[in-house]
């Protein structure tokens, strides 16, 4: 459904997204984008909803050239693809009641006749687990979780096909996060939604996505089935990321598998961008940039991915 090809986004001297291709299938489907600060995951989401202009590459939705779309096509696209941000406060007008915030979106897209607005607002609030009387509240009279539900109701108001969820639960407490994740899972089934879930939390992505891409310095370094990539990562960066996630009932800290400080994105390293932090780096990694290729059932951009996968299975053999 959504096809992103060779996307490049530049902010001044920094190439924030460097040749990313991915495709999100028709819903119900979840595609996860994971990576650390500065990996480009948020920029990809913003390029998809046309908040930033790519330098090159293409984005297509059901065959529509999104970057060249004008007039009615563009309007249909903006209706079909909605974004939800980490901080609901940045999207909700503090002086506008919930009813107004939702009605505004309905009117902008001519989604329902005026007479049907009130009923539609109630219906949307109920779909996201709120009640009809929440419509009369102001944002500050709601909790953070409730405000995020309102953002979701607003996005759903125009019946989108695709949601871009940019860290939708990162600002929420864990108990609230758990309920919002349940909501996303339920809506996806009820409404056959497809979404691109941008998150630094691997467990959240594993819960909600079939596919995942791991980003490092604007490039996809590993991509494939979420269950496989997140449980048996092949790229040394994905492995370091996976190993750094603290888990309950385990002695911390684990010995670090990588030097923590990422390189300056304005002057990325030669060859493989991960080589200065990589425990497996060899001369070839310093000179030649690895391309994505098939390794053990997923795509990975690493000259030594086979060794990484082998090392991992040996380690797990020793444990068992």
């Amino acid at each position, binding site marked *: 459904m959504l096809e992103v090809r060779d996307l490049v986004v530049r902010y001044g001297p920094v190439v924030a997204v460097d040749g990313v291709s991915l495709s999100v299938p028709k819903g119900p489907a979840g595609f996860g984008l994971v990576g*650390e600060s500065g990996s480009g995951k948020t920029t990809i989401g913003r390029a998809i909803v046309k908040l930033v202009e790519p330098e090159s590459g293409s984005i297509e939705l059901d065959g529509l050239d999104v970057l060249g779309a004008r007039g009615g096509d563009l309007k249909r696209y903006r209706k079909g693809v909605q974004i939800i941000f980490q901080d609901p406060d940045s999207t909700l007008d503090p002086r506008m009641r919930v009813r107004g915030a939702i009605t505004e979106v309905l009117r902008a897209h001519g989604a329902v006749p005026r007479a049907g607005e009130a009923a539609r607002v109630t219906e949307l609030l109920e779909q996201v687990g709120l009640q009809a009387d929440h419509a009369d509240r102001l944002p500050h009279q709601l909790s953070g979780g409730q405000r995020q539900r309102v953002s979701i109701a607003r996005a759903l108001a125009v019946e989108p096909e695709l949601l871009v969820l940019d860290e939708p639960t990162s600002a929420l*407490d*864990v108990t609230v996060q758990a309920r919002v994740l349940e909501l996303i899972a339920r809506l996806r089934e009820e409404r056959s939604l497809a979404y691109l879930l941008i998150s630094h939390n691997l*467990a959240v992505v*594993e819960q909600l996505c079939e596919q995942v891409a791991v980003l490092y310095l604007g490039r996809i370094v590993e991509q494939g089935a979420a269950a496989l990539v997140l449980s048996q990562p092949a790229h040394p960066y994905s492995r370091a990321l996976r190993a750094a996630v603290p888990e309950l009932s385990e002695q911390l*800290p684990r010995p670090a598998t990588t030097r923590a400080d990422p390189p300056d994105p304005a002057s990325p390293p030669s060859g493989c961008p991960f080589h200065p932090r990589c425990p497996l780096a060899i001369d070839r990694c310093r000179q030649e940039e690895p391309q994505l290729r098939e390794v053990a059932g997923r795509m990975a951009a690493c000259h030594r991915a086979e060794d990484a996968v082998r090392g991992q299975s040996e380690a797990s053999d020793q444990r068992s």
Partner: protein
Amino acid sequence: MKLEVRDLGVWFADRRVVEVDSLELDRGETLGLVGETGSGKSMTAYAIAGLAPGMGARVEGSVQLDGRELTTLSQGAWRDIRGRRIAMIFQAPISSLNPVFRTGDVFTRALQLHGASKAEARTRAAEAMRSVSLSPDLLRRYPHQLSGGQAQRIAIAQAIALRAEVLIADEPTSALDVTVQAEILEQLQKLRTEEGIATLFISHDLAVVSGLCDRVAIMRDGRIVERGPVRETLTSPQHAYTRELLAAVPRLGEAGSAHA
């Protein structure tokens, strides 16, 4: 060293936001203080560090360091204790450094305030930087020239250089990427084993607390609802709220998923 908190109350006007009956911290021990937004965990820490009155709060009850009452200390007396005996690190490491000074200037001045000569201060600062695996060269930088992980390690290095006995760490890794978080946790662990520092570790992240802390106290609505040795408390929680918190943590490798 022993830190003892008794019947601590923190009030904003007529609203009590903290009501902690007791907390104790011994040398070399790490105590996790866990809770969600508004649970009062950070305000408890600020009250212990003597920072709550400056935020407009009224503090009642007792906080004692080796038998010396802290809640009634003058600001002048606090200067002698805060930094030197009780150090604090925060969630946003860069914004807790003064942007107009080179990090080293602030660092050595703090040491001089606590009685070191200039030359001695420089040497101790450089040593402390090396002990958190940073180059002393970073002391010549301004805060905006540091990464979040570097700034947090510098904050830890200050605690080391001042030979603090108690470290109050308020969500010190919550704003950092996981690979950076892993390094900071390693530094905190080292601080405990090598320097014998006692740490009050404030966090919303049960997984981090389970790995790092000896004991844990779970806070809700200003009160401690459950406390005990970390493993026991998190593997067989007695309080319904602790169970709810644990159940809500998304875990890798057991996707109770939408697409199962």
